[in-house]
């Protein structure tokens, strides 16, 4: 790729991910179909297999899926600069919109109608969270270790133990228990 082509590719990545960031509500996996349509079907930058790879990676690396996939696709398409511009594009719409809303919200918060609206909304949000929790619960691995870790994390968090400590301990428990399982398998053979 010449320098000119590279620049063009980066600009195109930026604009595509700007569109993706500006039109997905809710974030997370809601973004995957739109990404697929734009970068696989329209631009042909990556293949469907790459998208599956991205989902697999996003699930085992920290951070929001939108950022993970923008960085990954940008890198595959155009190296470091590609990942930079794709990530910038996907972040920018939320950033601008939320800044405007943050300024507006503080001005409107004291109006009675707005207070009533948020009174209702908070109950609605609780329902949305419950549904999201149920979705995650169903996807959770089903075995004794997983159930115990989930239950322990729940109790520890209710008792306001530090969340970082809970997360790190869970990773260590997962690591140790999977190595014990591997060893047992090897011994049985």
């Amino acid at each position: 790729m010449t320098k000119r082509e590279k620049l063009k590719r980066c600009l195109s990545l930026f604009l595509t991910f700007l569109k993706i960031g500006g039109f997905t509500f809710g974030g997370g996996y809601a973004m995957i179909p739109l990404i697929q349509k734009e970068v696989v079907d329209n631009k042909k930058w990556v293949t469907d297999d790459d998208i599956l790879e991205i989902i697999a990676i996003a699930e085992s690396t920290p951070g929001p899926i939108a950022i993970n996939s923008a960085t990954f696709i940008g890198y595959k398409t155009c190296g470091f600069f590609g990942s930079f511009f794709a990530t910038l594009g996907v972040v920018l719409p939320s950033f601008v919109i939320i800044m405007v809303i943050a300024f507006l919200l503080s001005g409107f918060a004291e109006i009675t109608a707005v207070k009533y609206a948020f009174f209702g909304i908070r109950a609605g949000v609780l329902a949305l969270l419950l549904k999201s929790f149920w979705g995650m619960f169903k996807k959770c691995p089903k075995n004794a270790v997983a159930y115990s870790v989930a239950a322990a994390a729940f109790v520890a968090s209710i008792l306001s133990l530090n969340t970082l400590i809970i997360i790190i301990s869970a990773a260590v428990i997962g690591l140790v228990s999977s190595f014990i399982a591997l060893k047992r398998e090897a011994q049985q053979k």
Partner: protein
Amino acid sequence: MIELLLKCLELFVTFFKIGLFTFGGGYAMLPLIQQEVLNKEWATQAELINFIAVSESTPGPFAINMSTYIGTEQAGFLGAFFATLGVVLPSFIIILIVAKCYEKFQSSKIVKGCMSGLKPCVVGLIGAAVVSIATTVLFPSGITLSAFSEVNIYISLAIFALMAVLAFKKVHPILIICMSAAIGIAVGYGLNLKV
């Protein structure tokens, strides 16, 4: 000036930590955000819940919306910039590394082992977050015997039950938020509620 810079640094470090330790999409970030933001008194629990609704009704990922919002509230444009940079940077760096050695990463027993603990952990943490948010929504001024005599809790419960049914029937989240707002306004004025 120095105060502003220190605040920006604090925002950056806090959201970097949040970005680095959140596994999985959607509300996986909520427990950590809750802990950090409430402890630092950057927002109250009720404000946090209000903002979840704002985030659901605007485009973009929850993490970016949240960091931009808290950053703006705390230190204007610069605050928003550093908080968002902080939440984005960990994924950005890690994905760049993983993209280079994808095969090794995918077959790594260490990654698989850690994930087998992290996945259920996130479920447990979100469960706890839902419980604490439910407490705030239903008992804004704490759980007391007198709280049960207030009409607000029954209205909240009714809205919650109705919206939960709709949510599980896959009604769009934005529609659910709009309907909850409309009911809140109608009932609020109708019964002259104190909220």
